[in-house]
């Protein structure tokens, strides 16, 4: 019997759990998860949990360099406005993490099981791949999924395989987000990763809505204080969530 896993399941039970996923790396999962959580945070208390053990990008986007406090209740979140943030990075600070695959599940079960999670809405940022982290999340909860891809053929092919897995596993895929589709210039759009024809086709085939997001070079200025960002991407995400 694994009591920490049981506790993790209990902590998430009955809550709205939204996971931002992509088997492909660098497509904007952490950015989008953070912006979605910030959007929810405008109306209600929201938890943002980072399951990317090696990236810890959520902490980096929010500029958090402290360590989690630990209480009788477990791991206490970092608080940013209405957001409660949990990350393995908040346990180790700026030391690197290197782990045998076998241990990744234990690490994430501990984070999820020990997190003093009080919020009813939980946004989860996930790592690339379809390995232990994905299986651990699945062991603990049945999240609604937002699937992120670049428009590039390569990225869409990787994400299509993941989508197949998600649908076979009966997870609900809310939307596909095609991130970094175009870059607006005064002289018209540039398509740095190709036109989004492949992702459009995938959406039609699977009957899932596709949302198209631009490249916003302004975003980089808000690295470390993403709560201050109110540019293009934020606005597009607001529109999607308001639909």
């Amino acid at each position, binding site marked *: *019997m694994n009591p920490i896993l049981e506790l993790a399941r209990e902590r998430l039970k009955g809550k709205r759990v939204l996971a931002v996923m992509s088997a492909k790396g660098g497509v904007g999962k952490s950015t989008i998860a953070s912006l979605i959580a910030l959007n929810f945070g405008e109306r209600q208390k929201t938890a943002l949990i980072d399951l990317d053990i090696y990236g810890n990008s959520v902490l980096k986007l929010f500029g958090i360099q402290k360590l989690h406090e630990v209480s009788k209740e477990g791991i206490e979140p970092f608080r940013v406005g209405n957001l409660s943030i949990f990350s393995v990075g908040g346990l180790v600070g700026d*030391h690197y993490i290197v782990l045998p695959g076998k241990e990744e599940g234990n690490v994430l079960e501990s984070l999820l099981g020990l997190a003093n999670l009080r919020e009813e809405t939980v946004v989860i940022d996930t790592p690339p791949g379809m390995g232990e982290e994905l299986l651990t999340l699945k062991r603990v909860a049945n999240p609604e999924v937002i699937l992120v891809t670049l428009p590039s053929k390569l990225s869409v092919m990787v994400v299509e395989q993941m989508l197949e897995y998600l649908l076979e596993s009966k997870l609900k895929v809310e939307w596909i987000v095609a991130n970094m589709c175009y870059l607006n210039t005064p002289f018209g759009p540039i398509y740095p990763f190709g036109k989004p024809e492949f992702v459009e086709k995938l959406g039609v085939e699977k009957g899932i809505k596709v949302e198209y997001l631009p490249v916003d070079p302004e975003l980089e200025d808000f690295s470390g204080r993403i709560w201050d960002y109110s540019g293009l991407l934020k606005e597009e995400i607001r529109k999607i969530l308001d639909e």
Partner: protein
Amino acid sequence: MHEWAIAMSVVSSVEKWSMEKNLGVKKVFLSIPSLSMLEVEVLIEAFNTIKKESKIRDAELEVRVRDQNFKCRSCGNVFTMKDIRDQLDPILRDYGEENPLHIVPSLITAFAKCPKCGSHDFDVDSSIRVEGIEV
């Protein structure tokens, strides 16, 4: 400190088990890795407090602290906590009582290396588990 959260997890999973099986529980055998530096007395105190509000009020907690045998997957070397004591001390110094290994013992490979070959790639047995229930 988070011994309380762990005790809670034990009470609630054993309680669930007891209700599903419709069996009373006399004793719970919990196994923890020594690596975690969890305080056994605090675990037991917390268990005894929390169980009062549960359906396993009569259960007693017995904690076994497992010593670690690490096995390097790179060179095959087998080593113990003692062999990496010098690598563990700085962790306590830098992070204090609520250090990463105390909270998540599996993180050991991030901080320690095989004393023979220097690899971070070694097998750990770091889970916290209920190994038996006496009814």
